[in-house]
């Protein structure tokens, strides 16, 4: 009952914020025209006028892909944050904190730097897929690395995990810096893009490339909820209760890093969403992953859409890197968890 209410509220909230995101921006476009443009695209007419020239272009070519990218990236970061926390058995295991996002961005930067050298004949769309797969590989590799580093006597140890995360973040950050510094600067997006994230580069091409990378995890991960619940009482109990812990672990890591990797490839590192969203979700309706995973996806989409609106609108006509907005929202939550669970987390 309570959960039905939560689902309804979040879905409605997401729809409303998508509408706002399409209606607001540096260009003043009357709501009527926004609705007109959208309805016209799907095939019918409400207010009559259809040809709005550049306004229609801004809505269809700038705002719509950007909003969709926000929804996809938010859902990806929310659900994969929740899943990775489940596998690590720890509410602080967050893709950007433990270095998974940094691994993805490093791979993406390397691929961009050597793209023309290695694959001179790639088309734009193929290039995006290559980038997404590369970032996926980078994310998956770092996830396994941190997981194995942080395991002490079969239990994931939170301090080792966070320390490993610091090391990997520093290393990947330094290498990303090195590559952006050495490679000819024109080709690589700025280091700020990789470190702070931005949805400003959204086009239909990269959004449609991102789509399957997010859709598959969002559908697939909830099927692993029971297994993730069992991880909370120990990896050995998973086996004893009759589920395959290794299969669950591998599937979760593959699906979660797939979503994180592709997101990082198109939008850079947007931190703290993976921490903030699952935490809020658990506060709302408990820690059962059958609830946490789908709701984190929904709430991630909602929050990132809102965060992107803030980043676009607050310092017009320039925009704030979206990572700044999410970090401002996320760090207090991080500190709150730290203070509240200080004793429990150390053990």
């Amino acid at each position: 009952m309570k959960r039905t209410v939560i689902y309804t509220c979040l879905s409605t909230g997401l729809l409303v914020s998508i509408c706002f995101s399409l209606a607001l921006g540096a260009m003043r476009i009357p709501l009527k025209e926004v609705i007109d443009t959208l309805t016209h695209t799907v095939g019918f007419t409400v207010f009559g006028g259809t040809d709005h020239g550049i306004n229609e272009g801004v809505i269809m070519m700038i705002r719509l892909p950007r909003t969709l990218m926000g929804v996809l990236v938010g859902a990806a970061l929310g659900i994969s944050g929740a899943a990775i926390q489940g596998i690590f058995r720890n509410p602080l295991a967050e893709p950007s904190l433990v270095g998974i996002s940094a691994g993805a961005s490093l791979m993406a930067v390397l691929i961009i730097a050597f793209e023309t050298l290695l694959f001179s004949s790639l088309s734009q769309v193929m290039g995006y897929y290559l980038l997404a797969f590369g970032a996926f590989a980078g994310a998956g590799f770092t996830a396994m690395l941190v997981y194995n580093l942080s395991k002490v006597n079969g239990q994931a140890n939170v301090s080792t995990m966070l320390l490993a995360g610091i090391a990997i973040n520093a290393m990947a950050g330094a290498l990303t810096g090195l590559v952006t510094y050495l490679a000819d600067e024109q080709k690589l997006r700025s280091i700020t893009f990789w470190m702070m994230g931005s949805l400003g580069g959204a086009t239909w091409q990269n959004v449609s490339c991102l789509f399957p990378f997010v859709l598959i995890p969002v559908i697939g991960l909830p099927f692993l909820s029971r297994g993730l619940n069992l991880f909370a009482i120990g990896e050995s109990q998973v086996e004893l209760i009759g589920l395959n812990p290794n299969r669950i672990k591998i599937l979760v890591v593959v699906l979660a890093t797939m979503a994180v990797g592709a997101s990082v490839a198109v939008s850079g590192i947007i931190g703290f969403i993976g921490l903030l969203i699952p935490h809020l979700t658990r506060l709302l309706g408990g820690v059962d992953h059958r609830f946490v995973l789908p709701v984190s996806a929904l709430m991630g989409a909602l929050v990132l859409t809102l965060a992107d609106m803030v980043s676009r609108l607050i310092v017009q006509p320039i925009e704030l890197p979206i990572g700044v907005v999410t970090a401002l929202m996320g760090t207090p939550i991080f500190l709150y968890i730290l203070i509240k669970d200080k004793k429990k987390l150390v053990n």
Partner: protein
Amino acid sequence: MLRVESISYKLNNRPLLKDISFSIRPGEMVALLGSNGAGKSTLMRLLSGERKPDTGRIMLYGDDLAAYNRKILATRRAYLQQHNPISMAFTVREVVMMGRYGFKSGSSAKNDQTALLETMELCGLTDLADRSMLSLSGGEQQRVHLARVLAQLWDNKDAVLLLDEPTNNMDLQFQHQTLAIAAAMAKKGYMIVVVLHEVNLAAQYASRIIILKDGRKWWDGTPVQVLTPQHIYTAFGIHAQAYTDQSSLKTVIVPKEIKLDAAKFNSNLQVLHQPVYKLKTTETDELINLQSVKI
């Protein structure tokens, strides 16, 4: 039935278990006793499949544990570990329900509910059902995990239940309640293997006792056969007397008090006119406790 066929296990070249064999019939409750490092927990880990024996094998109803289908095995064997750390705020009800995850959802929904409600009632958790695990005391958490492993085997009396120090952190009432539950289930056909530190609990509830020492099985038999002063001295290095309680006909072990002079082990206390304090061992304290309840 469960048959252990001459298993050995080494860790980092250090032998932890050497050539252990025994078998358990349905309806038996076996207590594993032994001093620290005797190999009790290691043996439990092998029985639970967490570790594989280097040599020998463990057979459950004629099939090697290693060859079992995971799902089928989960309905025939459950294991309550000594430590069950949990970092997410699952509710008591959710954790107990995890014991049923191995079953196909839907088809056995009614059995799941029955197992959930009955085990929670039995372990005194009904009032705590919606509390977060993180807000419970150690003993309460242990009861939740007990309910969980019970729920896992609730509808299969041919199953084997492994309990590694289940009474950890529990208060006196639940120590007895836990072992009483295990003994009662054994009477209906379950096979129970339980690791205990407290010999008197073992004497009261187990139908059979195995004493391990240095990774070997030393004695195996009924409490009356196994719990003699000589055996206890050999296994634990402590002098004790064994009585038979007249009303229940069960063996009662009374360890002899150890007397120490603090001045002999703490050089700071060797001043002439300083009074000398005597220490009582905790074992004696527990015994007094026990007797006051029993007799």
